């Protein structure tokens, strides 16, 4: 068993190397020194406690948005709507922060968590219902609703919530509406929420009755239905749960990371979660590892932008190359269910 794990790790490392090699050529073409650039990336992220903490900060929302994809994928559902669900979660959480900001944190934070999850859940409930009734495929509806959610957020910000000074963001949340940070870094409590939920996900799928029924639906929906498992109910509930998780990520972003709701605050966190869940094959441990790697690339990319004068979109090239290299290895992903 250990040799199998070692072999898998080696193969993934080899694939990562290949991706970095390819990206090195692109750096060369654009006239940068690839070795120096890579050193910058790793020194800035893993080389110092501060850098490391920044990686964790970037990883935190990815854990949640990836889980929001991984959970429905076990039923064969494709939730591309993490982005929209995240926005709706942030939206409702912000309302709570602005309305109940004067209350003590032990009261206002739970309210924000609940409302954030509710916002995401409602946003995922719509595609869930449509799918369960056999009207529209959930992939399409979740994707389309992604375009709507940021508009709703903007509507509230520009119309009602903007601070006196700005038009595109709310006032800074009161301190009781901020998630507590840890160890004097920007890492906040939502990291542990994410890890705990991933653990819970693993436990449910592995040991519980519901996990068994969900695996049955994912394995053969027709047989599961004929065996008396309420597949429609599961579709709706699981979509709502996934939306709630993505909504929680949105709540954590505004309450922990920003402390304020910005219009268009998420640069594709939901889509990144989709990518991560896919790469990890929907496994909880894989999600943690992949999120970490992606977070390194993202934070390193920010830094390259500053020190090496590279456009940020270069980092997307590196991410895309990683995906390609992984895709080109079907032997690794055969056993995994496509998300």
């Amino acid at each position: 068993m250990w040799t199998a794990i070692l072999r898998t790790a080696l193969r993934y490392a080899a694939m990562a190397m290949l991706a970095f090699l390819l990206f090195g050529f692109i750096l060369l073409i654009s006239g940068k020194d690839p070795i120096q650039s890579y050193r910058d990336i790793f020194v800035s992220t893993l080389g110092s406690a501060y850098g490391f903490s920044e990686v964790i900060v970037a990883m935190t929302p990815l854990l949640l948005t990836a889980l929001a994809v991984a959970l429905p994928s076990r039923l064969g559902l494709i939730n591309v709507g993490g982005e929209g669900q995240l926005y709706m979660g942030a939206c409702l959480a912000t309302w709570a922060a602005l309305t109940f900001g004067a209350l003590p944190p032990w009261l206002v934070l739970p309210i924000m968590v609940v409302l954030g999850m509710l916002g995401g859940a409602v946003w995922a409930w719509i595609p869930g219902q449509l799918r369960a009734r056999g009207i529209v495929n959930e992939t399409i509806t979740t994707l389309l609703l992604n375009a709507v959610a940021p508009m709703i957020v903007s509507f509230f910000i520009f119309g009602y919530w903007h601070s006196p000074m700005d038009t595109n963001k709310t006032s800074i949340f009161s301190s009781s509406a901020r998630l507590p940070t840890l160890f004097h870094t920007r890492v906040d409590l939502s990291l542990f929420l994410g890890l705990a939920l991933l653990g819970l996900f693993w436990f449910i799928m592995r040991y519980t009755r519901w996990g068994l029924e969900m695996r049955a639906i994912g394995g053969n929906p027709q047989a599961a239905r004929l065996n008396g498992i309420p597949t429609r109910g599961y579709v709706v509930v699981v979509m709502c749960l996934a939306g709630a998780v993505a909504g929680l990520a949105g709540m954590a972003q505004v309450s922990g990371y920003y402390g304020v709701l910005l219009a268009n605050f998420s640069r594709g966190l939901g889509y990144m979660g989709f990518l991560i869940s896919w790469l990890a094959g929907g496994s909880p441990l894989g999600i943690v590892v992949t999120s970490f790697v992606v977070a390194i690339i993202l934070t390193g990319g920010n830094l390259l932008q500053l020190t090496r004068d590279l456009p940020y979109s270069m980092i997307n090239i590196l991410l895309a190359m990683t995906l390609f290299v992984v895709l080109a290895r079907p032997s690794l992903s055969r056993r995994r269910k496509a998300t």
Partner: protein
Amino acid sequence: MIRGGEARANPRPVLSVRNLSKRFPGVLANDSIDIDIRPGEVHALLGENGAGKSTLVKCIYGFYQRDAGELILDGKPVDIRSPHDARARGIGMVFQNLTLVPALSVVENIALFLPGLPAVPDLRLIARELESLGERYSLTLDPWALVQDLSIGQQQKAELLKLLLAHCRLLILDEPTRVLAPHEIQGLFQVLQRLVADGLAVILITHKLNEVLECADRITVLRQGRVAGQVSRAEATEDGLVRLMFDKGLAIPSARRRVGAGRTEQPILELRQACTRAEGSQTSLEQINLAIYPGEIIGVAGVSGNGQRELGELILGSVPCTQGTKHLFGREVTRQSIGGVRRAGVGYVPENPMAMAVIPYLTVLENMAITRTSRYARWGGLAMDWRMAERETEQARQGLGYRFASFLPARSLSGGNLQRMVIARELSHDPRLIIASYPTRGLDVQSTQAARQALLQARDQGAGVLLISEDLEELFAYSDRLVVMRAGRIVGEYPTDEADLYQVGHLMTGSQTAYVERT
């Protein structure tokens, strides 16, 4: 055996099949078949499902490779390795599931199929040819209509035109009338008459006797992969054909009958005027009246695709009941979920276990537990009692004398073992109603006996059994009452002892309709 029509002076056959055999794992689908197809005749292949008709024509069409025997085309032995070969030699086939591209027009669909199509095809030329062919054979069809706008009957015409335009001389039609309305069937037969009048040969697969008698020139009856007899139309009678199709020299094992058992009790299941609406390839059920009493086995006879499967699914609740009511143990369950019906004590052995009963990626044990997750759930569902599931699986296995491993994924089991697993699962826990569709399909003799014994035992313990099968021998041997289904209706109902094999055969094939009111 009835033989006929062979003494006459015959033209040279277009195609002669000699000694053709085809074996699939576990079954000899075609066993030394000899057939001659002559130009200018409609040659009907008649037989029950599984008699080997489709296999035979698929061997001729190159879809399957025959294991032995030879095909002689125009007097020369040929080797047909693929449908492509077959078409190049002038053999064309219309499948049951039509194969046109819905988004393209008729003429585009036909052009796609033509051999040696130039890079820029002149569609107008092809359309003109289509129209002239259509006039000649009364196959009128707008060449520019999109296939998705055509009815099934029109699509079938397009398929025929496609073959004619490709200069096919031997046309194989696999159950063409199954999808047609009665007037369309008449039209098709007229078309076929004109085609054979022009010297083409047609092989028509069907299991409807009246159609055969109406339009075939010669009839070959297949039974269990062998030629049971060959007759010309002049000599054919319904009785003779039914005898050829079904006569198995039935030695019916005596299972104790329970005629009218428990009729005074409340029925386990009662369908009143139940109807369903067909979706896709389903058959819609119309005005089904059926009561199953405790302690009886009801056999459902019928040619497959006549609503037997939908009947099972209606009872289970996977096909919604559009009209009428469904009562289970006296309680109305017309709108009940599948889970609810199952929890009330209904077991279901579907006809295709791999697709409909089993989750391939889960282990056998998980599959065994999946119909009763609430029974094995502990702590409100937070944990599963796998030890109990294993114990009960072991009991179910021993009760039937079956052996299959518990911890392998279900997909690694053979078809027979999967069937055993499903039977063991559905018959454990004392179900009060068992719906069994083709429960013994794919099982060896011993497992078949064990499954049948288990059904009888369940019956003797007071359960009701709905046994759906195409094996009339099985139905006559094990059921207490028989119902016959055709075209989504129950067309006959008898106590098995009073039922006559030939009469049931007549009803199944629709040669003699008798709507029997249930008393």
